[in-house]
């Protein structure tokens, strides 16, 4: 079973403000404001390079950011599900 590919709106569709290590994100398309904690903002940034699955995202992020987890890909997968429910990513 092939892993799902996720996509996100391009960076200019969002307005981000960092406050105390958290990212306040205004999503223009929905008009909603989100509070994001790492690695969620990093996942969105990673998807700016095009749709990807959890594994590829983990690799993209891994270069600059350390994911504290036994199973980084599963952790990314869980965050992707949350982002999907929030409307910030979708499965292509």
């Amino acid at each position, binding site marked *: 079973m092939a892993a799902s590919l996720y996509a996100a709106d391009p960076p200019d569709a969002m*307005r981000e*403000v960092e*406050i*105390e290590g*958290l990212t*306040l994100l*205004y999503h*223009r398309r929905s*008009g*909603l*404001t989100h*509070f994001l904690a790492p690695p969620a903002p990093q996942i969105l940034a990673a998807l700016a390079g095009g749709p990807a699955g959890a594994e590829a995202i983990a690799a993209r992020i891994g270069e600059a950011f350390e994911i504290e987890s036994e199973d980084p890909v599963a952790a990314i997968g869980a965050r992707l599900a949350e982002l999907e429910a929030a409307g910030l990513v979708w499965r292509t």
Partner: protein
Amino acid sequence: MNHVFRLQVGPVSFRIGSQWRQPVAQLRRLYAGYPEPDGICDFTVRLEAERAWRRWIRPSVAIRGDYVLPDAAPLPLAQGLLAAEMGMNLQMALGQKKFLLLHAASVERDGRALLLTGHSGAGKSTLGALLGERGWRFMGDEFALLGLEDGRLHPFPRAVSLKNESLALFDGVDPARLGPVLTGTPKGRIRHLRPNREAVARMGEPARPVMILFPRFGRDLEPIVRDVGAAEAFMRLTQASTNYVALAEQGFDALTRFVGTFPSKAIDYADTAQAEALVDDLWRSA
């Protein structure tokens, strides 16, 4: 609408219509000295009978207007003044789109303003009103208006609704500033207090905010000042705003700028003297 009253409060104007004479007469007295709106009124409030016969028999005032809460319970005519006040609050809460609306009190001294915000009953309203009697310029106790472009706090000095215990704190005020005693209201026994002359005269002057305060009153509390992180302040302020979402990106920008620029502090106090002292210290340090 047989009886009409027009009122300007800061940058917002109301047209209040009533099927009964009494509420309008009481409004006129309570808001003596307030300017009359020049031209169009921003909002219309209507005090009307729920059913035709309720106009005369056990008269009951339904709160209506441009914006309504469909299941709002009507009030007895004796509380008509309260109905008018609630009606104005409702128009602001549901219809105000020119400013970011925060459920907060605000006061100013020497051109620097403080925002007092927090849960209902935490004491910000009474504290704001009290500071207004102690040398601070009172800018409002129910709603603070944050300018979207200028980032300033715009005054909205409506009459303050004082409940039971708080009334005693305002013993010395000029009785002409007090509204009628209203008993049996949803909030118990209350009286309205007109802001003082300075507050009214300067209602058109916005002020630069310097600090966001989260006051908490409790007889058993130790006086404390605690830092509040900007992220927490942001979240709490969105919860204290009825129009944040409606203002879209402008609201986001105004609020992130606000919490990012000015420090936020939480203060606990057990009596007004403590509160005054804490606020004074913080204002000096800002």
